[in-house]
């Protein structure tokens, strides 16, 4: 059965339901959100249709600027650390036996589906004074007294890397596992150490995937909402926290919507930048 263009109503039937669902429940809500971002807020938590730029003008305040810069900084840190941990890890998994691969993949998928809430709770316990890893260090004689590592920037970073790393591994995995093993064998035969072969052959061959993974982890981290609240101080709150706070607790939907639109634009800009960079590298 060859692929052929659909003719008539009946042959288009299968695409109608998915098309309608995605249009009504993705395009329309998205459009509503964009529209609300231009609406005028009224006292008491309501908003009226209008076309004002006041919601966007609020971006220019120092408070918002700080939150934005912190969000970007945190997302970059999370993306870079995740990649540094994930690349050798994925490489080693991809080189192992099929059975071992399956076990690691099941473990990663299980962690991937852990709720942010549970990750936050687990790490807040792990980094706490009473039940945390510092007790282990004291027991080993490496530390004087147990210490609380939460809330703090390190805790937020740890929790978010924990959350983003499985994603990074799963994005890297297809390219790593398909990588021709003769490439490294040749390098080894020509006298390169395993480490040198990894850095001079494997990594350059995968540069497009590496950049894609970095950006994906970045966008993922940019959207994190719960961990900065559970593991950080208010100064560690991200744009996503601010959006939710404005929408639900300050009842300022137009401002929340404006921030969300801004977040989309930043994400889209980064995605297109990656694709552009990827094309350039391939050329």
């Amino acid at each position: 059965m060859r692929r052929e263009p659909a003719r008539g109503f009946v042959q288009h039937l299968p695409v109608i339901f998915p098309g309608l669902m995605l249009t009504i429940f993705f395009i329309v809500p998205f459009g509503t959100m964009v529209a609300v971002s231009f609406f005028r807020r009224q006292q008491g938590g309501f908003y009226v249709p209008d076309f004002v730029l006041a919601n966007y003008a609020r971006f220019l305040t120092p408070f918002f600027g700080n939150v934005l810069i912190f969000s970007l900084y945190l997302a970059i840190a999370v993306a870079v650390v995740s990649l540094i941990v994930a690349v050798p890890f994925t490489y080693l998994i991809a080189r192992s036996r099929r059975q071992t691969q399956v076990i690691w993949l099941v473990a990663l998928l299980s962690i991937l589906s852990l709720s942010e809430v549970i990750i936050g709770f687990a790490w807040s316990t792990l980094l706490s004074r009473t039940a945390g890893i510092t007790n282990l260090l004291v027991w080993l004689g490496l530390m004087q007294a147990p210490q609380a590592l939460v809330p703090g920037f390190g805790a937020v970073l740890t929790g978010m890397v924990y959350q983003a790393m499985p994603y990074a591994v799963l994005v890297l995995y297809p390219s790593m596992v398909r990588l021709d093993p003769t490439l490294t064998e040749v390098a080894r035969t020509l006298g390169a150490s395993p480490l040198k072969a990894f850095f001079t052959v494997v990594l350059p061959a995968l540069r497009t995937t590496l950049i894609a993974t970095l950006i994906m982890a970045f966008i993922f981290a940019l959207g994190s909402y719960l961990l900065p609240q559970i593991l950080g101080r208010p100064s560690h709150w991200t744009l996503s926290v601010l959006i939710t706070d404005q929408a639900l607790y300050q009842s300022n939907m137009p401002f929340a919507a404006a921030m969300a639109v801004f977040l989309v634009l930043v994400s889209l800009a980064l995605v297109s930048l990656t694709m552009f960079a990827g094309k350039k590298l391939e050329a």
Partner: protein
Amino acid sequence: MERFLSRLYLALVGIFLAAPIVVVTGVSFNEKQNLAFPPQGFSLHWFAQIFSDPEWLRALIASVLLAVTSAALAVVIALPLAWFLWRRVAPWAQVFQLLGVAPFTLPPVITALGFLTFWATSGFYGQPWTAVIAHAIFFVTLPLVTLTLGFSSIDRSLTEAAATMGADDRTVFRTVVLPLILPYVVSGYAFAFVLSLNEYIVAYMTIGFVRETLPIKVFNALRYGYTPTMAAVSVLFVAVTAAVFGLIARFGDLPRLMGAMSTKD
């Protein structure tokens, strides 16, 4: 040496990945109502409480219902679309594929806020089914990706043979395509189910003020009063998730599903 170093690295990452799960499991066995680790005493009381305490039970039921229905809806949206894209030459329909992937790629708070404004504007805010639709759209990416992969793995000469023998489109789908695609339907459903079960922000923004799903309940418990029940719930969820993916690995080809090329070593 080389072997030892790579084993060591894998072990260290393994410890990092396992540590939170170990702690949560330990806490869930505490005898008294505190979050001590290592656990003091041993009790399965907190696991029993999930099913005996009406509030936790209600949250559990709400979460499972949401996950079962929204994952089903996600598959119902993804299957005809993926089939159409595979069966027909229709470049314009790629737009819908892009739309299907978009919610999962953007920061989740965007989808959440989009639905919040949408349901508030249309007057349905707080209805339980709004969360079902929201999760179905949010997670439609997963069945869409597994099904697209599944269709691409079907040998077209099989369907061609069936058509030559006189089978119409419907018969070909039922007797040839569906059996081949079924594992991918199941795994797409499983992915959407598991992620919906654990999702917080979209559920919170759509129905959070009206009812609690388990992640919402755990977060509220985290804020307003710790109890080992939340640890017990977490352990339960991790176990269910690992079981689901373990089954996929047992009956399907997990490495291929995750992007490896060859079927067997």
